[in-house]
């Protein structure tokens, strides 16, 4: 990361679309590496990362990163839920229903889903939007900016107990969004 800026020095895009991402990354003067790979644990990715001087990377995307990759670099991930209480990719809908909050946790990736060391946790106001899936990345970006700006890179281990919430059923999702869009936040 460049000094005092939330701009990374390198972006490694796996199966990325050059046309849409290249322009923005060029504007920010970020070096880019495009890779075609079957999954995040592909040997090609490992080989590229091993040669990089950076110690910490920001990870976004799907898939469990295996120990081999985790042993050579650290990966920051912004999870849309307060861990360990809320694990799983759609856990924010459950937290809206349970206590009308949306929490974010900055964690280091581990080989177990959403169980890595915690860098920071924060609750954000629940947005009054119907397209929650598209809005959540904006809150994740805010959280990431806070972590990078304040250099919150010291991880503390989390309780391995907690709640893993599986993909939310559309009925529950609708109730959560209806609550979010009708609730008057004072």
């Amino acid at each position, binding site marked *: 990361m460049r000094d005092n800026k939330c701009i990374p020095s390198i972006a490694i895009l796996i199966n990325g679309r050059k046309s849409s991402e290249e322009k923005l990354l060029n504007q920010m003067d970020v070096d880019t590496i495009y890779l075609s790979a079957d999954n995040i644990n592909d040997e090609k990715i490992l080989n590229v990362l091993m040669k990089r001087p950076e110690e910490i990377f920001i990870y976004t995307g799907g898939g469990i990163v295996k120990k081999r990759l985790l042993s050579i670099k650290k990966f920051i991930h912004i999870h849309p839920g307060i861990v360990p209480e809320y694990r799983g990719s759609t856990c924010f809908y459950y937290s809206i229903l349970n206590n009308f909050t949306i929490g974010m946790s900055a964690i280091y990736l581990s080989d177990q889903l959403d169980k890595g060391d915690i860098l920071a946790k924060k609750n954000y106001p629940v947005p009054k939007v119907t397209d929650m899936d598209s809005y959540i990345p904006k809150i994740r970006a805010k959280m990431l900016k806070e972590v990078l700006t304040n250099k919150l890179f010291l991880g503390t281990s989390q309780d391995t107990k907690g*709640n893993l919430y599986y993909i939310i059923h559309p*009925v529950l999702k609708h109730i959560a969004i209806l609550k979010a869009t009708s609730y008057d936040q004072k």
Partner: protein
Amino acid sequence: MYKYNGLMSYSYSPYEGIPFLEEYNNQRKSVLKMLEKNHKIEDIKIKIKDQNTIDDELKKFEVKRKSENLYELSLNCLYFYQKTGNLKYLNCSLKINDFLTANIEKEKQPSWLHRIITTEQLLFNKLLESQEVKL
């Protein structure tokens, strides 16, 4: 609009507002009506399992879509949702029930399904009330 065919993918399901919940509600009500019309609904005995066992079975269903007895798992999930308030149980039961109600014409355990859907409807309405969402 979503169709409850029991084969849906739940990832990134679109938001369709109150009409979606009304459609879900109508689908479940029509299932109950059909069961009552075509079958003699009898009282059933439910075996409540240990919560840790249900947690393991829930995980197996959510990850692999496998279960030895979907009826039993669904009813146990509804029971543990009532007992604990943890939405993961209601979530799992809703998914199972989508599957169970997809082929209602050939239903072999009508009394079980009737009990499941009746309970699910009761809990759905309670949830709407507690979340202050009106249809």
